[in-house]
């Protein structure tokens, strides 16, 4: 790779303590950021600082510490709002992760808005978290369930939309923004337009997108968007669901209990205002602060720079893999995909590939990547997946390729 990038991945690696630890006696080549990202010191420090100086339960206490804690949480909420250009911070709900956010919409919106004759539309590319909740809610409500199919390059077949619309009243279209298994970047604006034409809401699973590129909910036009902090340098245990205020206000709450109520009486309970209506119990407060710090860190690096860097890495990886006749890679060409590469080695099961690479200090993912319908479509039980982030350097891809030679030799 010769192109100079706007970010210096080698320098950024120094922010991540985990890279100091060897793996199997070698330096760690972490190529599994799509599963979860590593954490920069700056984020870890922010969480520690919160616990050490500003920790108390939020929104309830009158004392100074509680005020500081509340400010910390709400500042983080505002950072999420700004990150995705949401119109208002009250539309940003802290959840445990994107999966929980998607379940929230499926249950709290779906149960009251779907019935026989209605159609729920997802895609063959979906991660199980944006597939299974919809499948379940469709069957619970009697609504139909249809899939937008893929072509051989792993891209959505928009020509199939017309036929899908004939199967029922399309009420919800739920798709990923970026595929976690093939790296496909979906044509979200077109899907939003089609959804709205049908009178449907559009739910975007942005777990694999928001960490790696600028995502603007107003520009996209979607109605809901789900994010996981742990995939974007933030801690595990917190994520965000963004939703249009008018939709959230009309919905039943999801989880119930303390903090999400206005008044509780023996015969009647009323719900609190947004976003609290959807934040029952004590929020993951320090985690939210960590989430905010992660956003600051990434904004500092620059999302455009991150996107460009990953694109270069993906193009480099695909080129290198194309040189190996005994490796097959899946998905669209580099120009239409994010920093994710899925591949198989002839005659060697992904689990064994990943195991041998592990012995070389290289971490990749082997399996179905929570996309069993996609694996079926590809005609494989599993694939290997290498995924990149701001701290990935080309040398790690070189090590991956060298590792694949070791794999081939070992199982020849």
């Amino acid at each position, binding site marked *: 790779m010769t192109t100079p990038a706007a970010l210096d991945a080698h320098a950024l690696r120094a922010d991540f303590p985990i890279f100091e630890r060897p793996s199997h006696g070698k330096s760690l080549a972490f190529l599994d950021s799509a599963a979860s990202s590593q954490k920069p010191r700056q984020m870890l420090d922010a969480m520690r600082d919160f616990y050490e100086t500003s920790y108390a339960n939020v929104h309830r206490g009158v004392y100074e510490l509680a005020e500081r804690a509340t400010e910390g949480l709400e500042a983080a909420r505002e950072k999420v709002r700004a990150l995705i250009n949401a119109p208002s911070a009250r539309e940003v709900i802290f959840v445990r992760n994107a999966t929980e956010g998607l379940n929230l919409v499926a249950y709290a919106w779906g149960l009251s808005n779907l019935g026989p004759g209605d159609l729920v539309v997802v895609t063959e590319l979906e991660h199980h978290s944006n597939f299974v909740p919809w499948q379940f809610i469709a069957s619970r409500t009697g609504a139909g369930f249809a899939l937008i199919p893929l072509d051989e390059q792993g891209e959505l077949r928009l020509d199939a939309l017309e036929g899908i619309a004939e199967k029922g009243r399309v009420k919800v279209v739920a798709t990923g923004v970026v595929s976690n298994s093939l790296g496909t970047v979906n044509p979200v604006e077109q899907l939003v337009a089609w959804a709205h034409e049908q009178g449907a809401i559009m739910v975007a699973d942005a777990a694999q997108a928001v960490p790696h590129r600028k995502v603007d909910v107003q520009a996209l036009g979607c109605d809901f968007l789900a994010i996981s902090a742990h995939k974007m340098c933030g801690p595990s245990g917190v994520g965000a669901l963004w939703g249009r205020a008018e939709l959230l206000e009309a919905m039943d709450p999801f989880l119930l209990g303390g903090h999400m109520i206005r008044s509780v009486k023996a015969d009647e309970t009323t719900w609190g205002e947004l976003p609290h209506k959807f934040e029952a119990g004590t929020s993951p407060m320090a985690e939210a602060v960590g989430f905010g710090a992660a956003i600051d860190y990434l904004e500092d690096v620059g999302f455009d720079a991150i996107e460009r860097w990953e694109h270069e890495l993906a193009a480099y990886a695909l080129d290198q893999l194309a040189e190996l006749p005994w490796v097959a890679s899946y998905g669209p060409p580099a120009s239409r995909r994010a920093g994710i590469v899925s591949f198989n080695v002839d005659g060697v099961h*992904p689990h064994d590939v990943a195991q041998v690479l592990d*012995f070389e200090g290289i971490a990749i993912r082997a399996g179905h990547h929570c996309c069993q319908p996609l694996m079926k479509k590809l005609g494989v039980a599993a694939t290997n997946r290498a995924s990149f982030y701001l701290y990935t350097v080309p040398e790690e891809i070189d090590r991956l390729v060298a590792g694949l030679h070791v794999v081939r030799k070992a199982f020849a």
Partner: protein
Amino acid sequence: MSEFEQLYREVILDHYKSPRNHGLLDPRDAYAEGQNPLCGDEISVTVRFGEGDVIEEVGFEGRGCAISQAATSMLSDLVKGRTARDVAAMPKDELLDEIGIPLTPVRLKCALLGLGVLKVALHKAKGTPLPEEWGTSAGDITLN
């Protein structure tokens, strides 16, 4: 011995590349199939019984990692000549000792898939008991 050589012992690679008792039996007295959904291993097992429910022949097929296929191949040799009841009660450690390699919890599931599927086949054909525990955690392996 490198880490690779410790896990992928000669005997493992041998059983993987030249699996014993490979190919489903026809006719057969027992059949079951199972997958390890975590990583895409699949095994199908057939059995033919002789006198007194003794396992005379075993035939298996599958698609999966070297550990899962080799373990099933080694298992198939281990159980021939034993009764269904005896094999149904076979503790997983017996197979693991035979395999003789260091296995993490994740790869334990690969190694024990074949044993689980065989036990289901025996249960379906002869009513032998199913153990509560498959490897390290029940429910991750879907067995038919």
